[in-house]
């Protein structure tokens, strides 16, 4: 294993490791624009110049593999390297427009960040604004991305992403010298379903998000780490919110799951939460219409109704269906409630073909066909029990009059419209059973037939875990409080369990997860605290807290 010493700190690395990667692991900051751990190195920005003992010229840390015994000095310890990097930064700012006041990248801009560092910047400009090269600005590149060619520093991250990662190959440089411009062919709208990543990886404000454009400043944002609930891949992301509203979703890097990428559907999945009105108050059906009631009354009605629903001559036949968009903890409590309260429930998690689709890819990169984040988790909890598949079979039995009551935990999918057939089947089920309790997030015509409607928190409003298609367990973070009187599903189910006389398990996230670990053999050895994704090659490194971007995949 080659040994490299950077700024007098030694490190053993695997062969082929680049100097910049070794520096990141040591927590030594080497400035960079064009290097990105998930793109092929190009070495064109020249910001990562370091001094290597014995080499005649400065080397680019991003394209130079470590050799055993290498001694490297970064700008922090080498005057030569520091002078070079200061020169490069000055060059980058020569033609850069004075756009900071109107540029969305302000606050998370590599140019700003490096300029404010005494080792790299804080020089006085020697270029009059009227001398700067002018290029085209505010070019519409389709529904996700706006291009400003003046701000571009020609790092080529977007060109490489488009060519190597998404394969769309929609961006290229044209012209020469300081007239080089980034261009989409004929300024066509980007057709890439991963175009949103271009915005993340652009270190400056050349490629900006249309969805986030001018919403607020990034320093206003609060950050909550979470997992995408759009499909069974479970991409790691961060919810950026301000004033109680989600402003954007950005990916977190996890080499094992999504590298540094998010699909556009997942990126915009938060919009689905406000696409329809939210349920904010529990409801109970009196004389054919729903009345808003308080939780006490609603829970009492639910508990009573579920227990009272019976047909003479047989134990209560309950159809219990929990969406695979629910967290593992919610599913655990759901199953416990149903299994312990009723003798022979029809218990399932399938509204469609989730279990068949959970691993099927939808494209070559990230998306999967199953648009639920926790199908594998549900399957590991043995929730796909009914032999012929959940909702359809339950509906058939209900139509035969064989079901006394229904308990549904339903979340509308975030990246697609729900299949109308599914909504119809749900509505039909609710009408076909004498008593039903629905836990859901949004208003919908389908739940009009429910006897009790309990509003629950959506994905971004609760904590818990999802298990992705491959069995990786990841934590969901709570960014916002649920609206109105809505509560987390875990809390509601815990309350129902308590009313049913079952010992009230602690609904604290860690405690529930510990129970999951005890229940599911696959989860043996996992601990809740360590579930925060810590890949072996965390990027950016822990030491780089200065910009508040820890975990942000764009850098």
């Amino acid at each position: 294993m080659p040994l490299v010493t950077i700024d007098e700190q030694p490190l053993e690395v695997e062969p082929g490791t680049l100097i910049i990667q070794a520096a990141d692991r040591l927590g030594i900051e080497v400035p960079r624009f064009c290097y990105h751990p998930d793109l092929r190195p190009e070495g064109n920005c020249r910001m990562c110049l370091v001094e290597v003992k014995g080499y005649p010229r400065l080397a680019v840390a991003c394209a130079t593999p470590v050799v055993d015994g290498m001694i490297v000095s970064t700008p922090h310890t080498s005057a030569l390297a520091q002078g070079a990097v200061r020169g490069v930064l000055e060059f980058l700012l020569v033609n850069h427009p004075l756009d900071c006041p109107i540029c969305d990248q302000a606050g998370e801009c590599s140019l700003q960040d490096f300029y404010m560092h005494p080792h790299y910047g804080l020089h006085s400009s020697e270029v009059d604004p009227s001398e700067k090269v002018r290029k085209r600005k505010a070019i519409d590149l389709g529904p996700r991305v706006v291009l400003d060619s003046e701000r571009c520093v020609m790092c080529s991250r977007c060109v490489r992403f488009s060519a190597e990662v998404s394969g769309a190959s929609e961006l290229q440089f044209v012209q020469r010298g300081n007239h080089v411009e980034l261009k989409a062919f004929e300024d066509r709208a980007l057709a890439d379903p991963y175009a949103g990543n271009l915005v993340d990886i652009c270190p400056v404000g050349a490629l900006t998000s249309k969805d986030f454009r001018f919403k607020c400043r990034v320093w206003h944002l609060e950050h909550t780490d979470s997992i995408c609930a759009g499909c069974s891949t479970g991409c790691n992301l961060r919810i950026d919110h301000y004033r109680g509203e989600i402003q954007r979703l950005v990916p977190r890097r996890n080499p094992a799951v999504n590298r540094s990428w998010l699909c556009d559907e997942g990126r915009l999945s938060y919009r689905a939460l406000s696409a329809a009105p939210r349920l904010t108050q529990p409801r109970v059906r009196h004389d054919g219409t729903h009345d808003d009631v308080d939780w006490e009354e609603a829970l009492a009605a639910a508990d009573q109704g579920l227990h009272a629903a019976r047909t003479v001559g047989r134990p209560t036949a309950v159809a219990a269906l929990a969406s695979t968009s629910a967290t593992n903890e919610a599913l655990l409590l759901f199953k416990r409630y149903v299994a312990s309260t009723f003798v022979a429930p029809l218990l399932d998690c399938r509204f469609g073909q989730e279990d068949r689709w959970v691993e099927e890819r939808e494209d070559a990169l990230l998306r999967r066909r199953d648009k639920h984040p926790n199908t594998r988790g549900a399957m590991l909890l043995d929730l796909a029990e009914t032999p012929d598949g959940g909702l359809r079979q339950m509906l058939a039995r209900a139509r035969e009059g064989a079901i006394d009551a229904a308990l549904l935990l339903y979340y509308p999918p975030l990246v697609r419209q729900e299949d109308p057939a599914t909504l119809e089947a749900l509505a039909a089920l609710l009408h076909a059973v004498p008593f039903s309790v629905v836990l859901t997030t949004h208003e919908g015509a389908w739940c009009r037939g429910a006897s009790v409607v309990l509003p629950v928190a959506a994905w971004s409003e609760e904590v818990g875990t999802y298990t992705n298609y491959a069995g990786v367990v990841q934590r969901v973070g709570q960014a916002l409080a649920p609206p109105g009187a809505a509560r987390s599903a875990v809390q509601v189910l815990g309350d129902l369990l308590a009313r049913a006389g079952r010992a009230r398990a602690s609904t604290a996230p860690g405690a529930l997860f510990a129970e999951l670990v005890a229940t599911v053999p696959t989860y043996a050895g996992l601990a809740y605290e360590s579930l925060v994704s810590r890949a072996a090659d965390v990027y950016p490194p822990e030491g780089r807290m200065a910009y508040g971007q820890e975990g942000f995949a764009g850098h």
Partner: protein
Amino acid sequence: MARRDLPVVNVTAVAEDAENPVTEAGGTLAGLEVTLRRMVRSLRGKDNVTIQYPEQRKPYSRRFRGVHVLTQRADGSLKCVACYLCETACPAECITIEAAEVPDNGIEKVASRYEIDLSRCIFCGFCVDACPEEALIMSREYDLTTDDRDGQMAYGIARLTERPEIDAYGAGYRPHMQYPLVESYLPTQRRQESAAETGPGT
């Protein structure tokens, strides 16, 4: 320890002295001497520091920090590009901004909502210091009164841009004190200039 060069007072003796009303009255009058002298001079109109506000007003500095003004460009559009620096710098968190798109792709951004809650404002001028565009300055208007705190004290774009007090009090705290506004205009200036094609200036 008492200093050796200062007189030492025998407090018991002083207390006994005070029991004499004549001495007491004399002492009080002596203490009132300054006050009485001042009163007589003032009645004769000699030196009087009281001014009869609002008929008389004290002149304030050219860089006085009064009520804010949002400046304009030559075509009357707001100079403000909603960069949020003033909102961020404000220690009282009294500025609220929302941004909007502008078709001109040399400018791109403008404030669609810009509000200063003057009941929270401490008139420190950090917002003017922070503004990179000379879009926000302060006038020399200081008498801000209202009978409706909730409704009248939050100034929006309309009142910050144009109100009679701007001309009446003039421009105060701004980025380049020794020069007229360099990059922007006050409304009357702008109208004068476009009418007479002369340079701006206050």
